[in-house]
């Protein structure tokens, strides 16, 4: 088992995983019950690309919550800025796709800096509520201005202004590869930040803000940088979402959507990059499968006591989430870590050690 945790081995494993993911559109693998069809079909690739986007979004939230300890309830706002921003910029200006993405991200950067500076004046639960309130304001703005944002109907991507290789059902695999590339990029951006000086200060703020102050380090810049980086990365995933789904609805700025991101991060394992990635994939696949299950005939034939709960994916996911929080504090990654420790140390001492699981991950 030791060879698996060796640094060089991690690069090999990670590289192999990315190569495998990149090869999926070219091969014919059928995973019944997990994907709607063979891996090369556009339907399956759409689901897989969506799960990669959610992984990247969860990684961006990890910068706030897992690394810096900022419990934000407004993260969806920046995702929506990315998605709506791209749609609006493409429709209202003559910009090409890449400059339009650049402009959108600059907008997200400005918004994150301003709103972050205000909301970081408070901490803890107040911070959570302030971010929630800002996201709510964003949601109101989007719903109340239908001539710009499409209101409750949502905004669709002006597909005529997007390069041909990213439009059309047959091109889903290009979008899938794009999503994979962005996920890898986001992963390394987060890794880079975690290992930078500001990242270390941010992690120290999570552990003990007072001690950081006593050491003479100002916590505010590190927190703000973490907030801005997490938010801009969320906007990047929003842009990608807009390209993949060819549209976005106000649901993407709702409090429920932020809660979904939170659920993903906790499900995968708080404080772990791989946890966020795994959580995103597991959540999206579960959500898709449970929705398909809800509409199936087997469920419709059940008596109401079983049928009603089983036909509500969010009920099952919410219950699963409660169980994970209560009984599986480290999420999926924590579970894997515990198994590994049990292997290494032997059953007798595992119980004692499992509480101080090593934090570092690849």
């Amino acid at each position, binding site marked *: 088992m030791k060879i698996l945790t060796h640094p060089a081995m991690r690069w090999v494993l990670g590289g192999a995983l990315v190569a495998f993911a990149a090869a999926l559109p070219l091969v014919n693998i059928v995973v019944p019950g997990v994907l709607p069809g063979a891996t090369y079909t556009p339907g399956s690739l759409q689901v897989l690309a969506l799960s990669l986007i959610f992984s990247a979004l969860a990684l961006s939230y990890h910068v706030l919550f897992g690394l810096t300890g900022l419990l934000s309830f407004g993260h969806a706002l920046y995702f929506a800025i990315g998605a709506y921003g791209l749609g609006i910029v493409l429709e209202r200006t003559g910009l090409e796709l890449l400059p339009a993405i650049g402009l959108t991200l600059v907008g997200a950067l400005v918004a994150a800096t301003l709103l972050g500076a205000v909301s970081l004046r408070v901490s803890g639960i107040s911070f959570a509520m302030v971010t929630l309130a800002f996201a*709510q304001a964003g949601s109101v703005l989007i719903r109340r201005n239908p001539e710009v944002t499409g209101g409750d109907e949502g905004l669709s991507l002006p597909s005529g202004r997007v390069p041909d290789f990213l439009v059309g059902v047959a091109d889903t695999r290009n979008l899938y590869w794009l999503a994979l590339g962005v996920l890898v990029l986001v992963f390394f951006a987060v890794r880079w930040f975690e290992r930078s000086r500001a990242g270390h200060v941010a992690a120290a703020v999570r552990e003990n803000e007072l001690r950081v102050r006593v050491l003479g380090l100002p916590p505010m810049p590190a927190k703000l940088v973490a907030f801005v980086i997490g938010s801009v990365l969320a906007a990047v995933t929003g842009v990608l979402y807009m390209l993949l789904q060819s549209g976005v609805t106000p649901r993407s700025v709702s409090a429920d959507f932020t809660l979904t991101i939170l659920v993903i991060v906790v499900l995968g394992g708080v404080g772990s990059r791989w946890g966020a990635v795994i959580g995103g994939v597991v959540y999206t696949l579960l959500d898709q499968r449970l929705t398909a299950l809800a509409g199936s005939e087997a469920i419709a034939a059940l008596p109401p006591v079983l049928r009603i709960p089983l036909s509500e994916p*969010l009920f099952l996911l919410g219950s699963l989430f409660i169980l994970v929080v209560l009984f599986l504090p480290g999420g999926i990654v924590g579970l894997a870590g515990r198994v590994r420790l049990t292997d290494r140390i032997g059953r007798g001492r595992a119980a004692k050690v499992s509480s101080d699981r090593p934090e570092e991950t690849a």
Partner: protein
Amino acid sequence: MSTVVLLLVTGLGLGALYFLVASGLSLIYGLMGVLNFAHGSFLTLAAFLGWETARALGADSWGSLLVALLVGALTGAVFAAGTEFLLIRRLYNRHIEQVLVTVGLSLATVALFDGIWGTDPIFISGPQWLAETTNLLGARIPNNRFLLMAVAVLVLVAIVLFLRFTRYGLIIRAGVENRSMVTALGIDVRRAFTVVFAIGGAAAGIGGVLASHYFGYVSPQLGGSLLIFAFIVTVIGGLGSLPGAALASVIVAVLQQFANFYLGGTGDLMVVLLLAVVLLLRPSGLFGRKA
């Protein structure tokens, strides 16, 4: 003039609703440090069960409204106390996890309500008088506003009396002030946690039944939409402060009504703006203690 009176009274009615939700949130946060995301679900379930009761008894009599309010209060109290007992208590002193559990509960229960009652709003009716209007200084005020205000004042008085004159009230007040000292004196604060949850749940339950009359319908989203404003109210009023919650409820709701009418439907944005201003000037809220 009549418009101003109408907006003011409607704002007070809405403020009463905010207060019923925010009072429980604020007490729970003050004593336990838990931000309760499931509070909206307490309200929604109480509204649904209250309406089912009223419908079974004949919706247009005062008696059935009274029974519905009692059922709502009881539903909220039992649901809330059960939540505290089964979920929150296991995560003693782990605030983030406690918040996460209530988040999961709110997601799961709202989905369950969707499954049971459907996602569309169910339009309801009540005693004839509630649907009529009263002429006050030239403004025609819907009567349910008066009912809301009266009930909110009653709840406020009841909670204040409970906190001031009962043993549990004393423990709760002391616990909000300094919980570790109360524990050190050998008093079991945890039983007070359940009591606080039950009180907060009951207030939210009453709020749920009244909200269904204020809006004219019940839907699974009822609680969630009120909860966000209740959060804002608790932060503006100062977390853990009951008078703060009462004052902030009125300020927020009246501001919302006036901005909606005079500033082109910008009520929700003005409320968020007010929150930002309050936090910039007084990060601990109007009545909050310095953190």
